[in-house]
């Protein structure tokens, strides 16, 4: 199995899907510059640079998707989504329902998110929960290069708008990526490690932190199950509930700020459906309700680290 970075796995997914389906095209802020090999293979009509104008990039994708194309757009950094909110939330997410099902919007939005580059709060803001809260949209966030390829391929084939958040801290980390038609279905979590004592649920960069925490917990005799959500919407409630039903303890971990984050939904969902199986309160670890500082140590301090995750899980197990 070849080893690719997450960034190159995204390129491989784009190339394979553009090869497979003539209706797939890619445009965005520098995509034709940074992914030159796509321009060489598919030509400048199907791989286009755009002005730095997120509203028209997203709106053009919505109009194109509604009338027969399958665009993938690259908006660079997640906070720039603020400029594309109307097009993605009010148009892409709503016009299928509002039109009585006359149209569908198969479009994928790529953005980079999270800590790792010290670029400050206007380039680093994990706002995936905003889009989970918006009807009509789907949201994925891979933690490995293999999942980046598989989720993006599945997202391009999906007939709905999908936001794909790429964790900056993982972008150039290598990993094994299956060749050929590797698909990761939207809405299926991955159980990365089995354990009977506590469930650690996460996505993106903090999945790796949970795995490290599980190693540390194992050394203390605590067996932690680690679930990588991969898709935030649709959310694999069944995988979470099955695990928590076995372990009776849950720690939800994400880098985005905790307040009204994806972890809040998961905690509420488990409380509603598996309360009687819980042996301890649910713990949520997330960032503060604050913009992220640029300084590297301050930036990293907003991300739940393996030690904090292990400590929280150990406290639950000993409580």
């Amino acid at each position, binding site marked *: 199995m070849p080893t690719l970075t997450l960034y190159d796995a995204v390129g491989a997914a784009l190339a394979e899907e553009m090869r497979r389906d003539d209706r797939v095209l890619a445009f965005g802020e520098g995509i034709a510059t940074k992914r030159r090999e796509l321009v060489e293979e598919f030509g400048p009509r199907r791989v286009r640079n755009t002005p730095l104008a997120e509203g028209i990039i997203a709106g053009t994708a919505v109009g194109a998707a*509604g009338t027969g194309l399958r665009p993938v757009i690259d908006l660079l950094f997640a906070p720039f989504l603020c400029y594309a909110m109307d097009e993605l939330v009010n148009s892409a997410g709503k016009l*299928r329902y509002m039109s009585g099902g006359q149209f569908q919007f198969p479009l994928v939005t790529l953005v980079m998110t999270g800590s790792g580059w010290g670029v400050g709060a206007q380039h680093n803001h994990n706002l995936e929960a905003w889009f989970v809260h918006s009807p009509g949209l789907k949201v994925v966030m891979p933690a490995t290069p293999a999942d980046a390829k598989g989720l993006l391929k599945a997202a391009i084939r999906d007939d709905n708008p999908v936001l794909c958040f790429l964790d900056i801290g993982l972008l150039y980390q290598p990993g094994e990526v299956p060749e050929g038609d590797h698909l990761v279905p939207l809405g299926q979590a991955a159980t990365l490690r089995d354990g009977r004592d506590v469930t650690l649920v996460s996505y993106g960069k903090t999945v790796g932190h949970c795995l490290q925490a599980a190693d540390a917990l194992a050394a203390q005799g605590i067996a932690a199950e680690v679930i990588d959500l991969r898709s935030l919407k649709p959310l694999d409630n069944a995988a979470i509930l099955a695990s928590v039903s076995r372990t009776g303890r849950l720690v939800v971990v994400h880098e985005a700020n905790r307040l009204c984050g994806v972890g809040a939904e998961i905690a509420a969902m488990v409380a509603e459906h598996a309360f009687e199986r819980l042996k301890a309160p649910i713990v949520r670890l997330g960032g503060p309700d604050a913009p992220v500082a640029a300084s590297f140590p301050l930036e990293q301090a907003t991300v739940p680290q393996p030690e904090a995750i292990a400590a929280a899980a150990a406290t639950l197990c000993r409580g």
Partner: protein
Amino acid sequence: MSLNSPHAPAPDPRQLFEQMLLIRAYEDAIVTGSAAGSIPGTCTSVGQEAAAVGVVNALGADDLILTNHRSAGHLLARGADPGRLLAEVMGRRDGYCQGRSGSLHISARELGVVLTSTIVGAELSMATGVALSQTMLGRPGIVACFFGDGAACEGSFHESLNLAALWHLPVLYVCENNQWQAYVHRREAMSRERVSDWAAAYGIPAVTVDGNDVDAVLEAARHAAAQVRQSGQPYLLETWTYRTRGHLEPDDQAYVDAAEREYWRARDPIATCRERLIAAGRLTAAEAATIEDKVASRIDTARRFAEASPFPPIPTAAELARGVYA
């Protein structure tokens, strides 16, 4: 080469008159229903009928239309069934969007009226994408995007024109400059008198035409559509018109200058058209009355159809989200 569109033969002027009457009668029925409480608040285009009828009649069957919250004129000129439109406005099952749109965002794919949005300027952001589909998929039609002077003040207007020019997209931008942006007069909101002035910044040909003269609009729109077809490049047509009624029904329009309203009321597009046709000997007063009766009868039928259409069945909580995803 003639710039007249081969896609759209010149319509009978009496048909244009009838279409304008139909739009007026339809919206009058909505105003009446709104006042009576049987129809939710709506945005009408009373006074703007010539702009809609003139432009839509310059389009061919392959052409696609994006519109906005004042869409009744565009839809009816395109041949929409007033009964199904009214049913939609009343939230009934037989509406074009099964009662999920209401009056503000009606689209009708079967008529080529795609992707209506009520977020001011959103139609401009999507028009480039629809035109991109037409060119990438090798479809023949051009894309007509209707918006107002309010939308022209949104960033999406400028972003859209820039990208359409840059990417050679066949978009006919139709700005219905009705002088009012919700509750704000355009003079309070625009640095220039005309929206067409702004198109020059993007290298896009543009013209402003008397939007209350259906013949002038038709001629300008046929020329504009042919230009877009021939060049594959965008074109901006501004129709200089007036929103006779308020922003959202009901609206007492206490904020409107009386002299301004009187000036435009004296230039009513339907009365102007009728007088011109009669003076030219193309219509008699008796024929005009017959057409008016026919239109009134159609609206009556439409109202009965809409009122007879049931509300959509109330789904269970779990079913409420049906149709959100493909």
